[in-house]
């Protein structure tokens, strides 16, 4: 990835083409930072200063954005930068050995670069490959189903000078082709139903049909289908579009949220791989409905291997006059650009995502105003999930009645589940809303199931024994697609600890309860696992968790306590078993050894002094 760009003074001159490429528009700061990093391997201080000058910002202002995102480096990060996904699923599937092998083979430890500056080794959260873990990103490609053996081969070849792409894509497929993506990542579509992944969908015909309708009629169709947002919150899509239609504003925007960051989900990855046209067309339908000319697909950086492929899809659609100027020869202009993320789970929140599209830190905005009134650059902005747009294309093809006849009265249609963990066949399952938990477990071949984490860490942990008959739908087990299965051999407390650490890692820090409270809750679960917690700690978890749920600024903070709160409710015994019985005058949480460690050190130092 590094092309040996001259750093320091010459960096200033090298910034100019980048500034020009984006017309020195500071809302494109993230793209510029990516361009610098892809050239230089990291973002040197000299580049920050030059960029700041060119954008009339203070250097620290540029750093605000740079330092917010996990994948940006302000120090050299190795000729190859490796990110091993640290997820609960990976940890069930040989993560530890893979991690140890990586450290051994690269000659460095996680969080640092080896002495020869060849390898930078880093942890990262879920990269959307829970169906084929352990997995890692190397520069811009990914390697899945890692084993120590496989790691040794990859690192050896890199040492010998092979590029990651040569290793991952031995047939050297063009990065714009589907084969390039599929050489790296399996789709694992296990069951597809009536809505998604249909072969040979007549996209031009569907769009023709849509554009024959008045925008209001399109909104009406979407409303009649009763589809609700597939991102997780379940806001009625028809209502959102109507608000977008009615929102005053000359320019409006459609954004596709492809920042699939919830641990355990990967359905958007597969939709973008196998049905990108359904998604892009759905955006175009939305643009017609609300009256937008600008479209942005916000793609998480973890899916970089999809970028060229998706760009090509957009180019093809333009050539076929399904995108761009005068779509299908009508007075309708709409175009889509891809905005790459840079590693921040919080950008899945729609207002944080908009901030990120504007080149800023991904901090959620204060609401109101809502994006549908004032979003991207202050314009009315309609943001929907990848799956929602894909479903809209199916609705425009087959009709609202057809869609609303699927599922249940209040949860119409189907939904894609990203199934991972303890089951025979992890992968993508299209289910009709209304199926029971047991039915899903049966279908995916899950045996001896103890718990299912529905909707990822931000969702709820349910008990297979107690909740098996509950139904997946918005009014009962609402699911954003993430479906992680744990059998009886798994230690749920470890899972909870991992999830709590995830939220601490990913908190943007803008509000007090999430930034500070998350740390305390993480501390509590560690105390429990260490066997040093008491009844009081469980009460604290509930009280402090409710504080975060009530007062946090965005969905990240309000859902962050849920791994603790939902397992406490469903599996109270696993907590009770770990409670300490107070002995003696000290609180069990008091770590005497730790508290006196400094004293021990001082004594040793003194003793050494004396013996000299």
């Amino acid at each position, binding site marked *: 990835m590094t092309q040996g760009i001259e750093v320091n003074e010459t960096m200033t001159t090298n910034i100019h083409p980048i500034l020009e490429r984006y017309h020195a528009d500071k809302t494109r700061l993230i793209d510029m930072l990516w361009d610098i990093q892809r050239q230089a391997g990291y973002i040197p201080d000299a580049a920050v200063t030059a960029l700041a000058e060119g954008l009339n910002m*203070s250097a*620290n202002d540029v750093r605000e954005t740079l330092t917010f995102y996990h994948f940006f480096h302000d120090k050299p990060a190795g000729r190859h930068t490796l990110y091993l996904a640290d997820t609960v699923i990976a940890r069930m599937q040989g993560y530890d050995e893979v991690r140890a092998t990586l450290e051994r083979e690269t000659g460095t430890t996680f969080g640092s670069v080896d002495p020869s500056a060849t390898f930078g080794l880093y942890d990262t959260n879920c990269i959307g490959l829970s169906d084929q873990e352990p997995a890692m990103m190397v520069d811009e490609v990914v390697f899945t189903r890692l084993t120590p053996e496989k790691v040794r081969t990859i690192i050896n070849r890199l040492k010998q000078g092979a590029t990651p792409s040569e290793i991952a894509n031995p047939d050297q497929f063009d990065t714009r082709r589907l084969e390039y993506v599929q050489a790296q990542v399996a789709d694992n579509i296990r069951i597809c139903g009536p809505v998604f992944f249909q072969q040979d969908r007549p996209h031009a015909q569907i769009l023709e049909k849509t554009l024959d309708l008045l925008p209001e009629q399109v909104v009406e169709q979407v409303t009649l289908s009763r589809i609700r947002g597939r991102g997780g919150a379940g806001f009625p899509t028809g209502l959102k579009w109507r608000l977008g239609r009615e929102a005053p504003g000359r320019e409006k925007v459609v954004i596709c949220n492809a920042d699939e960051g919830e641990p355990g989900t990967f359905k958007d990855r597969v939709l973008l791989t196998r049905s990108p046209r359904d998604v892009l067309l759905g955006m175009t339908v939305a643009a017609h409905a609300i009256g937008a000319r600008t479209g942005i697909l916000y793609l998480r950086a973890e899916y970089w291997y999809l970028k060229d492929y998706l760009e090509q899809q957009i180019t093809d659609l333009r050539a076929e006059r399904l995108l761009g100027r005068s779509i299908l020869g009508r007075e309708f202009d709409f175009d889509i650009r891809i905005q790459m993320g840079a590693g921040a789970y919080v950008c899945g929140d729609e207002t944080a995502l908009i901030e990120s599209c504007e080149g800023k830190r991904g901090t959620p905005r204060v609401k109101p105003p809502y994006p549908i009134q004032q979003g991207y650059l202050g314009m009315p902005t309609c943001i929907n999930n990848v799956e929602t747009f894909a479903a809209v294309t199916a609705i425009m093809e087959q009709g609202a009645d057809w869609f609303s006849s699927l599922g249940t009265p209040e949860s119409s249609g189907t939904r894609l589940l990203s199934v991972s963990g303890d089951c025979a066949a992890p992968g993508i399952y299209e289910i009709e809303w209304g199926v029971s938990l047991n039915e899903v477990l049966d279908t995916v071949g899950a045996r001896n199931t103890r718990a299912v984490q529905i909707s990822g860490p931000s969702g709820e942990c349910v008990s297979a024994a107690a909740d098996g008959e509950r139904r997946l739908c918005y009014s009962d087990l609402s699911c954003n697609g993430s479906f992680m299965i744990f059998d009886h051999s798994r230690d749920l407390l470890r899972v909870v600890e991992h999830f709590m650490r995830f939220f601490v890692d990913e*908190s943007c820090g*803008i509000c*007090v309860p999430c*930034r500070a409270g998350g740390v*305390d809750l993480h*501390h509590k679960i560690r105390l429990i696992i260490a066997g040093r917690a008491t009844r009081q700690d469980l009460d604290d978890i509930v009280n402090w968790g409710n504080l975060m749920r009530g007062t946090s*600024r965005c969905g990240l903070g309000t859902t962050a306590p849920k791994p603790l709160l939902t397992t406490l409710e469903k599996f109270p015994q696993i907590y009770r078993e770990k409670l300490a019985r107070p002995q003696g005058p000290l609180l069990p949480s008091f770590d005497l050894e730790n508290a006196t460690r400094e004293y021990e050190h001082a004594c040793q130092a003194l003793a050494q002094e004396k013996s000299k």
Partner: protein
Amino acid sequence: MNIRITLDGKEIETTAGTLLVDVAADNGVYIPTLCYQRGKPCLGTCRACSVRVNGNVMASCTVPVAEGMTVEVDAADLNDMRKALVELLFAEGNHNCPSCEKSGRCELQAVGYEVGMLVSRFPYRFPPRTREHVAKYIWLERDRCIFCQRCVEFVRDHETGRKIFTIDDRGTHASIEIDVALADRMPPEQVREAAELCPVGCIIAKGVGYDKPIGQRKFEVKSIRERTLERSRK
């Protein structure tokens, strides 16, 4: 447009769209704030003004009032939530009031008194934070930063409009930063304003420390509650 809302059981008349926190103050109900300042855009970072609106907990600085709203400020659980948020801040940073130059004019300290905080229920973290003293006129005491974002949003270099204060990194690694070159050309008036803008003793103007004796400082003379309610009466 005149509307009616219910505030702690009392029906009051007010103007639609006014921020709830201000409406409350205008009606003699003090809600603590650490980031919000009347007349300035809402920052919504500290959440210390959390109240219940139609059954949901919300930060009152983010809520424009609407007809028929039912608002609870004074309820045992809400009082405790606001207190807990203040306690979180005390545990998160290093706040040593007796030795702090801002003591007596510190909004965090003053709000601490208002919510009845005696000690933090959260474990004190004693985080190691470095201070930044390179700037000519400003001393940045990071131990006390509560990430309210006031300085980040409201202080700009007069000539270029560039940000002088910024936040580096995110989450628990966040750190307040100062652009020294820009800070060094801040006129004395702007330095004074920045120091006053800071609700805690993080932005300190050099050369003027401890200029008022204990007992005569801002909130010692008049509490933050009195000041908030008094200003709204004006």
